[in-house]
């Protein structure tokens, strides 16, 4: 059994994930509303209850890559003055 479930779910703000959720399973957010979730019953239930869509790890990685590539393109189009306040987004590898 894999350690994680991968999925997309839009963060709706307060109570999107609770304190108890964080104690019950691993949860980490990535760009483009991609979530890496501890692979247990409560983690799977959370993804379902937040109207999330389960993805394979490769699918989730591709979504994150596309978001970051777009952000990098935006960054590269900025003036030097605007870049002074930003860091070029770096690619992220999902666990």
């Amino acid at each position, binding site marked *: 059994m894999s350690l994680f479930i991968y999925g997309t779910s839009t963060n709706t703000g*307060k109570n999107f*994930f609770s304190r108890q959720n964080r104690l019950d399973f691993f949860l980490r957010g990535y760009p483009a509303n991609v979530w890496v979730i501890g692979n247990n019953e409560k983690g799977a239930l959370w993804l379902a209850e937040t109207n999330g869509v389960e993805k394979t790890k490769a699918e989730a990685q591709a979504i994150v890559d596309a978001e970051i590539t777009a952000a990098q393109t935006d960054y590269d189009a900025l003036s030097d003055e605007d870049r002074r306040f930003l860091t070029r987004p770096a690619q992220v590898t999902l666990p």
Partner: protein
Amino acid sequence: MTTYKEIFGKYVRSVSSDPPAAAGEGEIWYNTSSNVFKSSVPVGAWSSGGTLSTARSYIGSAGIQTAALGFGGYIGPFTNETEEYNGTAWTGGGNINTSRQLIAGFGTQTAAAGTGGDISPGPITSTEEYNGSSWTSVTSLPQSTSGAGSTGTQTAGLVAGGNFSPVRTESFEYDGSSWTATPDISPAKLVGRMAGTQTAAIFFGGQSTPGNPSITANQQNYNGSSWTTGASLNTARTALGGSGTSTSALAYAGEAPPGNSTATESFNGSSWSTAPATVSTARDRVGSAGANSSSALLFAGTPPTTGITEEFTATATVSTLTTG
């Protein structure tokens, strides 16, 4: 060998049912129904909060978890928008008069101050006070700076360091109407976090030059008259979140090469310890607020620029003690 009674002032109680978690915090007892030793310890975790209306980075911040203030920041251009958090959702407040990022904020949601910050082409001295509905320009900071550490109240504030080039060492106290120079920090740093009061403050993390190599775990302590070197963070980081008092504080998120950190650290007045709780979305250039090491608010940040908010809460939880 020291006994439990010598430490706690009581013998280990035998009880048939557990006391309320909050009442038993720190105590050890023997549960005669389940035949196990138990204790109540604070367990912290991050949960989601309401999302800012305007996603941004390098936002100014003040207040506590259930009454926080976020103002200014960077959204492409600089913004003048203020938002107020009530523990559930963010709502719009009065706009600051000078749009900017990297404002040093302190005080409460209804009595805050913001000073310095960055606009093109560089740092400024402008100071403004918030009364819960609108910002008023007041006495300017003697030294232009951006990304300074800050803490205290609107009538007893403390600001130190900041600025990208050169990074500043100056610190100043604010009494609600004027600024007074106080001893310099050492080393200089920017975008660290400060917690505590004007006369009992800690200044942790940050960086001493604009580049990543200088990202630091350094902490400096202020007692109202001088700065001294304090404990070090376990994770060197910059543009982090931090809040609390000089004896009960939290550090969280921030840039910690090679990436952004999800780690949370708790300060007990003498040392930092890494908490099991992690921030769900790693980020830097964040806003933060909080009263102590049991309660904090993390919001905004980058990359990508976000309005995501998370709340840290540590509450007493009954746990079974095991030996191993």
